[in-house]
């Protein structure tokens, strides 16, 4: 791949001891529109700032056209950034904002004039050069910010959530304009956003990130149709994500039923995650062609289609879409085609922690000494503790728990919630529960002694 322009090799970075990027490897090709997509705190903006040079990576290297950027300060990098909230200089007018970079390079003033006018025309802001930037609307400021970056003819344009501050209509229009600009200029765009729809619309390649790691790299279609894990599936579009069991190749059990599918190579009786997009949950008028049955619990008009929630006879809730309206309470037949079932390796089947045995009834992990049923290991030895998701108790008040944390994400799995809790110690613990929690809730975490399984750590 000789047309790689930006190459991130084993890049790691942390803030105040908190790991925000963990071994990022990413190649970006010349002329590509690449989007870094993920929830806030996933490391996407940090990645962009590392490329721009506002941060230097603690580990790993960043290469531009094969040259290491390590000792190149941001003002010497042939890259330009469009900032979130634009960062236009309020003391300069539109013209001087755009000419700022060129003036620093001592470009002759007639040349500056020519180039400024050209970019102003490109962003459709001709006649605005004397305007005070504070007097511009959000969309206009956005255009000036893009013009200010492009006038320097960067090799790569970095865009940090540039449309986040605009209203929906404006955002849609700007998306189209950005896409066209990219086509016309032929330079590389690296775009950061948390808006999955924006990413799907704009990008050639999407890089989905979470918790400092790249979760999946692919074209928009790949990412939507073939999510690699439950995080990607949940983050991109709407989906039903369920625990499943791969019975054998091309046969999977989930939601209390067995289905044919197209995936193989998971082994026999292997726990997996199953993703079915709501538009792939088909509602059959003709009940004889149905694979299973359920009761409609809600039916909401969404403009083009109705969004339905259906309770299956086996007690799972599925999201479906249909063009027809169904009565709440009505019984419907459902069908999922094999090719619409996406089977993925499950990341974990229970909580696993490295621990130290304190005595035969106590074991220390997550910086807390837990009572356990019986540890058959000598005091002081290393052990591996497993706790199943369902045995992790979440309490309303942090002080009611043995350890405290904050709900960091919630995944609905059809009949229960899979909650990720970021503990004060910086570790994660996962809990399955019927209770509804919100992201950011402060919780206490309890584990009963009999639910802590201690095993020898084999190293």
């Amino acid at each position, binding site marked *: 791949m000789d047309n790689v322009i930006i190459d991130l090799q084993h890049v790691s970075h942390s803030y105040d001891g908190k790991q925000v990027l963990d071994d990022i490897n990413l190649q970006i090709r010349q002329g590509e529109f690449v989007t870094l997509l993920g929830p806030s705190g996933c490391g996407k903006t940090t990645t962009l700032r590392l490329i721009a*040079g506002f941060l*230097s990576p603690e580990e790993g290297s960043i290469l531009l056209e094969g040259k290491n950027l390590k000792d190149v*300060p*941001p003002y010497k990098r042939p890259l330009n950034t469009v900032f979130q909230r634009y960062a236009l200089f309020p003391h300069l007018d539109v013209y001087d904002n755009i000419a700022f970079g060129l003036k620093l390079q001592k470009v002759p003033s007639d040349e500056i004039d020519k180039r400024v006018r050209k970019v102003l025309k490109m962003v459709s802001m001709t006649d605005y050069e004397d305007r005070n930037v504070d007097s511009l609307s959000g969309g206009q400021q956005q255009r000036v910010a893009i013009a200010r970056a492009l006038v320097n003819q960067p090799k790569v344009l970095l865009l940090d959530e540039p449309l986040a501050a605009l209203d929906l209509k404006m955002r849609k229009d700007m998306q189209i304009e950005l896409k066209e600009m990219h086509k016309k200029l032929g330079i590389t765009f690296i775009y950061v956003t948390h808006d999955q729809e924006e990413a799907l619309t704009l990008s050639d390649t999407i890089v989905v990130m979470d918790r400092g790691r790249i979760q999946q790299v692919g074209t928009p279609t790949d990412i939507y149709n073939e999510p690699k894990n439950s995080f990607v599936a949940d983050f991109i579009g709407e989906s039903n994500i369920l625990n499943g069991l791969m019975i054998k190749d091309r046969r999977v059990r989930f939601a209390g039923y067995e289905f044919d599918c197209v995936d193989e190579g998971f082994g026999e009786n292997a726990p997996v995650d199953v993703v079915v997009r709501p538009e792939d949950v088909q509602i059959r008028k003709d009940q004889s062609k149905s694979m299973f049955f359920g009761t409609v619990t809600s039916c909401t008009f969404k403009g083009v289609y109705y969004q339905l929630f259906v309770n299956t006879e086996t007690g799972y809730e599925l999201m479906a879409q249909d063009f027809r309206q169904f009565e709440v309470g009505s019984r419907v037949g459902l069908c999922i085609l094999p090719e619409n079932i996406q089977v993925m390796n499950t990341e974990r089947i229970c909580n696993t922690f490295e621990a130290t045995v304190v005595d035969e009834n106590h074991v220390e992990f997550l910086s807390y000494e837990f009572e356990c049923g019986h540890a058959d290991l000598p005091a002081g030895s290393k052990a591996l503790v497993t706790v199943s998701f369902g045995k992790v108790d979440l309490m309303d008040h942090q002080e009611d728990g043995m350890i405290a944390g904050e709900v960091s994400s919630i995944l609905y799995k059809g009949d229960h919630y899979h909650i990720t809790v970021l503990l004060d110690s910086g570790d994660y613990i996962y809990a399955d529960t019927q209770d509804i929690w919100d992201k950011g809730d402060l919780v206490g975490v309890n584990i009963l002694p009999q639910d802590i399984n201690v095993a020898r750590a084999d190293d």
Partner: protein
Amino acid sequence: MIKRSSWALPYLIFMIFFVALPLVLILVYAFQDGSGNFSFENVLRFFSDSDAIATFALSLEVAIENTVLCILIGYPAAWILANKKYNRSAVTIILFILPMWINALMRTLATAELFNVLGIRLGKGTLLFGMVYDYLPFMIYPIYNVLNKMDKSFAEAAEDLGANPFQVFWKVTVPLSMPGVRSGILMVFMPTVSTFAISEFLTNGKIKLFGTIIQENINSSMWNYGAALSLIMLMIIGLTTLISGDSGKAAAGGAAI
């Protein structure tokens, strides 16, 4: 690339020299005798010096009385000034702030001269009056600031929930304006407890306050005792700051807008 956080370094070094070190020196001098040996002599001397203790008590008394008077007179004034119903003019506010910008000695002297011409005998009464006159703006301004910036919807919410104007004032406005009162207290109490020239002018040298004693000792080269007295003053200041629950931001916030 030099991190911008290191830009504070020159100032940090400056402060270590001109803020921290001088305070340490007060401590060092306070616990030294004339020939530079460690000693409790100076501190003990204060506690056996009944004049010094009386002056100290008087300083505290005057400072407290002044602060209380400033709150009693200043709070209503600040409230009226911040109330759009009663005051729409910026000029009145400027008039209240203006004295803060004029040299305090000059204002004090003017007051003292006025008393003289009016034939009022200088003493504790004129001292208090002059102090209130000097420091009232420093109480009014921070309270006015807080009241003026206070979201009107708090009062409206209270009214909506059935509070009468009196209750709105006591249960909402007053508690919410406490930060302003606190910085007012800091800005009035601290300077009054330590004042020296002002008290001399206002009482024609009849009443000495604690600051005067410090100054007299330093001026007559009794540095060690002067340092010990300063240390005692520092304790009072530290205690006041601690009680008002603010690390100085309040005072600063009031003064430095």
